[in-house]
Structures are given as structure tokens and as C-alpha cells.
């Protein structure tokens, strides 16, 4: 199967387009009429679905760009070259969406540029803002050879390909800082964030879990696209990433368990409250179960086994971001008397973001040589 056989107007595409139109209308409504009528955010819950899922989750899901980019261009692991383009393009969409979501979430969207000129270096949010801008630019540069190739701009293509290791290194640097700083955002609120998640090591945990998620996400996409395009999946690449997941996941588990024992204690995690149940769900779904499966050789070397692990890790890590951003503060905020559950419009906008990423990726695959289907 090659690019010409990719059908753009399938029923699935129509569904994506409808979601995008509806979500887009909700976003316009939010810009003109404010957060109050479009979201369920309130004085006790200033951050909701958009910040936790779209921004914290979206950025974590986009970590594949720097992990695979770093492996191919810095570590010179050329084995992974076939997946570097989709990984970076996927990261670009992830960051573009996170940036769009932040813009919609802040109270005055047209002032989104303020942090860039009003530096306040004590603020993690300032650091996050600078990183989003720099890294989205970096990812665009990393993806630009796709366009140059299409337009047959040989000089530009070779120039960017030539300086790619430098760009990739810059991308790795920004990502290390950015992934961890999203965890550092919550360091300021020790009495609000439940001790099940609050830790001085939160930045490291965000980083390590993002690397684990990156491997699963890229692996997931590789398997998915090999199914869609009826290609033989590159088993050596998938197996390499599965082994990587096992190592990084092991490190993450040690960090989490060490923090639980030295912090709130195991009792806090099994007291049956909503908070502790969500913690257990995240740990079992996202770390413990995947590690058990990965440690079994007959699972790790088998396509269905890897695919199952990938889905578990993606769900578990996104759940972790939702937990840190929302559930971790539920006990504290519950005492203040307000609840939060995302409004319909919040869901619609988030769904539109995801739909945009999927469709954008599909269009790129059809018109640009993302998957190197044609040589």
C-alpha cells in the first residue's frame, strides 16, 4: 500500500471533521463569552480538563519527539531512523494542541504573548511558556525537511538535515526541562496536593514517566500504522522500545514506591478513599501491570503483547496527569465546598483537539513522506 491508496474521505474522517466543527464553535463561544459560561471552572478549581488533559497529558504524549530524536541523532542509534519522522511530527501536533489549549484556558487569550516580554524568572509558568514557544519552533524545524522534500527544495532540505543533530540536541534539552517543569508547577502547593502525589521529586517523576510514555506512544503508532498500511511491523524496533520501556518503567516504579514509603506510607494508598483508589488505579494500570507483562519474554516479543502494554501505559500515564492536576486536590478542595466536573463545552473542545491531531497526522502521512512508504 502506498500514499496514493490512502483515502482521505472515509466515514472516520467525516466524524473527525464534525467533532472539530462542533469543538471549534465551542472554542469561539468561549473566547467571546468568557470561561464562566463555557466551563465549570470556579474559584476552588481554577484548573480543569484543558490544563490537565490537553496541556499536561498532551505534552507527555508528545515526548516521543525528543526520545526518538535523541536516540537517532544524538546516540546515533540508526536502527530507529524509520520511526523518527512520525515521532517528531506527532510531537509537533501534541505541542501545537497544548499551546492552543493554554490560549483558550487563560482568561485573556489575546495576551498569550505576555510572558515572552514580561519575564518573571521565579515562575515555573514563565519557564513553561518559554519552553512551549521554543520547542514548538524546534519541532517545526525538525519537521521542515518533510515540506522541503515535497517542494523539491534540495538546498534547504540538505541544510536542515545537516544541522539536525544540533536541532535534536536543543529539542532534547528543552524537553528535559519542559517535561520536568510541568511537574514542578505543583511544588508550590504542598498543602493542597495530596501526599500520594506531592513530592519534591515530582519533576523527575514527570520526566521519567514521559519517557516511558514516549516509547509506548511511538510503538503504539508504529503498530497502528503498520496495520493500516498493511506493512510488516518492524519487530526489532518494537522489541527495542519494549526493552526500553521495561528499564525506564522499572526506574519509575522505584521512584514512585520509594516516595510512597518515605512519604505518606502505604496505608494512605489503600484506605479506600477516592483519592487512594485513583492512585492505585494509576499505579496498577500504568506501571505495575505493564512491567509484569514486559518482564515476560513471550509477551514482550509478541505484537499483541506489546500493543496491550502500550495501551495500558498510555492510559495510566494520562491518568497520572489527571490525578496530579485534579484528583490530588479533591480532598483539600472538597473542604472548600465546591465540586468540579468538566462541562460539555470543555469536553467538546478537548475532543476537537484530539480529532485535529489525528486528522492532521493523516493528511501529513498522505501528502508528505512521513512513514517513508515510498523510497
Amino acid at each position, binding site marked *: 500500500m502506498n500514499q496514493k491508496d490512502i483515502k482521505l474521505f472515509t466515514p472516520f474522517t467525516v466524524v473527525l471533521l464534525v467533532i472539530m466543527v462542533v469543538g471549534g464553535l465551542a472554542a469561539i463561544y468561549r473566547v467571546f463569552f468568557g470561561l464562566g459560561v463555557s466551563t465549570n471552572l470556579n474559584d476552588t478549581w481554577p484548573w480543569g480538563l484543558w490544563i490537565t488533559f490537553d496541556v499536561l497529558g498532551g505534552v507527555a504524549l508528545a515526548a516521543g519527539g525528543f526520545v526518538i530524536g535523541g536516540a537517532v541523532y544524538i546516540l546515533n542509534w540508526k536502527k530507529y531512523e524509520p520511526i523518527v519522522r512520525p515521532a517528531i511530527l506527532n510531537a509537533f501536533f501534541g505541542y501545537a494542541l497544548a499551546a492552543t489549549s493554554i490560549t483558550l484556558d487563560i482568561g485573556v487569550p489575546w495576551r498569550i504573548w505576555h510572558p515572552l516580554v514580561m519575564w518573571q524568572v521565579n515562575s515555573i509558568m514563565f519557564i*513553561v511558556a518559554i519552553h512551549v514557544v521554543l520547542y514548538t519552533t524546534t519541532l517545526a524545524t525538525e519537521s521542515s525537511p518533510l515540506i522541503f522534500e515535497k517542494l523539491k527544495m534540495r538546498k534547504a532540505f540538505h541544510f536542515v538535515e545537516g544541522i539536525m543533530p544540533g536541532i535534536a540536541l536543543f529539542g532534547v534539552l528543552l524537553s528535559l526541562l519542559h517535561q520536568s517543569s510541568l511537574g514542578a508547577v505543583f511544588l*508550590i502547593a*504542598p498543602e493542597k496536593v495530596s501526599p500520594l502525589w506531592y513530592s519534591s521529586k515530582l519533576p523527575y517523576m514527570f520526566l521519567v514517566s514521559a519517557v516511558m510514555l514516549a516509547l509506548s506512544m511511538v510503538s503504539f503508532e508504529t503498530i497502528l500504522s503498520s496495520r493500516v498500511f498493511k506493512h510488516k511491523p518492524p519487530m526489532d524496533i518494537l522489541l527495542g522500545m519494549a526493552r526500553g520501556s521495561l528499564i525506564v518503567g522499572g526506574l519509575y516504579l522505584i521512584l514512585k514506591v520509594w516516595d510512597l514509603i518515605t512519604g505518606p506510607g502505604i496505608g494512605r494508598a489503600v484506605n479506600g478513599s477516592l483519592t487512594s483508589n485513583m492512585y492505585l488505579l494509576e499505579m496498577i494500570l500504568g506501571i505495575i501491570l505493564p512491567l509484569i507483562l514486559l518482564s515476560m519474554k513471550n509477551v514482550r516479543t509478541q505484537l499483541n503483547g506489546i500493543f496491550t502494554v502500550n495501551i495500558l501505559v498510555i492510559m495510566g500515564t494520562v491518568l497520572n496527569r489527571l490525578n496530579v492536576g485534579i484528583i490530588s486536590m479533591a480532598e483539600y478542595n472538597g473542604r472548600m465546598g465546591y465540586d468540579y466536573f468538566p462541562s460539555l463545552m470543555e469536553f467538546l473542545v478537548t475532543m476537537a483537539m484530539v480529532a485535529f491531531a489525528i486528522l492532521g497526522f493523516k493528511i501529513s502521512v498522505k501528502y508528505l513522506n512521513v512513514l517513508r512508504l515510498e523510497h
Partner: protein
Amino acid sequence: MSMNRRDFLKTAAAGSGALLASTVTPAFASMPKELPPQAVGILYDATLCIGCKSCVVNCKTYNSVSGGALYLKDRTVSYDVNPAEPYWDAANELSSKTLNVIKVNKTGTAVNKDSVENGYSFIKQHCLHCISPACASVCPVGALSKSPVTGVVTYDKDKCFGCRYCMIACPFNIPRYEYERAIPQVRKCQLCHHRFEEGKYSACCEFCPTGASIFGKVLDLRKEAQKRLTLKTGDDYDFPVQTVDSKEKSRRTVSKYINHVYGLKEAGGTQYLLLAGVPFEMLGFNKNISEDVLPDLTWAYIAKIPAVIAAVLIGGTATWAITRKRNKDREG
């Protein structure tokens, strides 16, 4: 902390010089940890409060004028009226329209004032003007800042882009947001700093009839608060009214205090100090409040960034060179 702010700024400025256009004016305001000697604040004594809410009403009136913390062009006074009872305005919670609120805590039959058993106590809630304010430290655009002279934590609506990180960071849940407005602002008590130039002070203190809220220099307020804790229950004492150094006194019998000046140590210390007859956790204050300087928690992370930048750039380049050579050797 291996690196201080000055070193960090030097490194950061050197590394990002190219990014800084000439029009850029970075707000490199470092977070203070010491109380400015001339800092002003409020002392609230719950045992003197009679719950008349004069402070709540006058806070709204005097902050709804131009320069005030509740000012809006199209609004005379920021009433927070309950639609079910449109005839009176009695907020029971802080909001973007109410920056100062009197609450009451009751136990049992609620007959004894300032008593834990079958008692009740009033409490006045508003911004505590932390010595090292978490809200100002997390603000990415420097919209919230602490005056180096008065120590008042003020808000610049033209800088704020509405990320609401201040609301997450504030350990006392003070900042409120105007979700209902298309161009919203963060609203919080700014200690009536717009009245200082006219020689006036916080409206809540000026209009408090009993001296429950008094305005003054924080150092004087601390002395006054500590003195009250040494008074004997049942004795008479001349409580100053309106300001700590006021000539006007109100002679009253001293009630029993719990031995705690709230705001001396909480969140690294605040410029709003409180005294009460019942424990503060009964009055809605968080029992687990940290005594750490909160901005230090994030600074510990930020201070490492320049070292990480250097390590990754050097280490990454070295790794790239080594692995490339190894690949070439293998091929060759």
C-alpha cells in the same frame, strides 16, 4: 541552594541575550524573605469582633472607586447579591466581588462568645500579604508583585493574562477570578494601598467600631499582638481603635486567647496577623499550613536549570561525537 538568584540571572541573561530585544523589560523581581521594616498590615482580634460587617460594606465602597481593588468602569459598588434575596448584600464567602468577609464558627448551642464548647467566634478573611508571597512568585508575567516598601501585594490588571496559577499557589485560597466576565481580572485585597497617598489606610480598619481590625506597621502590630497574649483574662485593657498607634482607645475586659498569633510563621510569615479565642483550624484555616517559604520550593528546581543546560549541551555533543565515530569505525 547552590546558586543564588543573581548568579542565575547572570547565566540566564548570558544564555538568552539574543532573545532580549531592546524593548524588552524583564521583571527580575526576586522574592523577598524578610519583612520590609516599614511594612504595613492589619491585626484582627476575633475576641473584639461583634460581627457587624461594617468592614465588609466599607471594603466594597472604598475599593469600588478608581484605583481600588474592586474598581470597574461600569459599576458603582461591587455588590455580591444573592438573587434569591435581592434586598441585602451579605456575602458568606470571598468572591471576585467580595475581598473581605466576616464568617462565624459555631459549636453546640453557640451561646458563649470565643469559646470552644457551645461557643461561637467570628473570623475575618482576606489576603494575608505574605512576606514571601507564593502568588507573586508563580505569576509568569509579574502581574502580582510585592511592594518593597509597604510590603503590600498588589495586582496589575494590564499585565495579567489569566493563567490562574496564583489561585493554585495561594496557601490561603485568597485570589478570586471573574469567570463571568469576557475580560476577567484576578481580585484580591490590596490593603487599600490606593488610599495611602491621601494619608488614609485600609477601610476595614477605619470603619471598625470596636478595634477588632487595626492598621499599622507590622512590627508594631506584632508587639501589640504578643502583648495581648500576656494579658490576664478578666482584666481591663485599653484596646486601640482603627490604628495600632491610635489615641482613641476602647476599654474592655480581656477574653481568653489561644496562645497563637496567626501569621507570625504561617507560610513564612504574613502581614495580616490574627488573634482568637478558639483554635484557627476551627475558623477555616488550614491546619497543615507550611511554615516554609513557599517560593523556595520551586526555586530549588529553577536554580538547577542553568547547570542542566550546560550539562546537556556538553554531554549531548560529546555523546553525539563518540557514537558517530563508533558507527563509522564499525562501517569502515
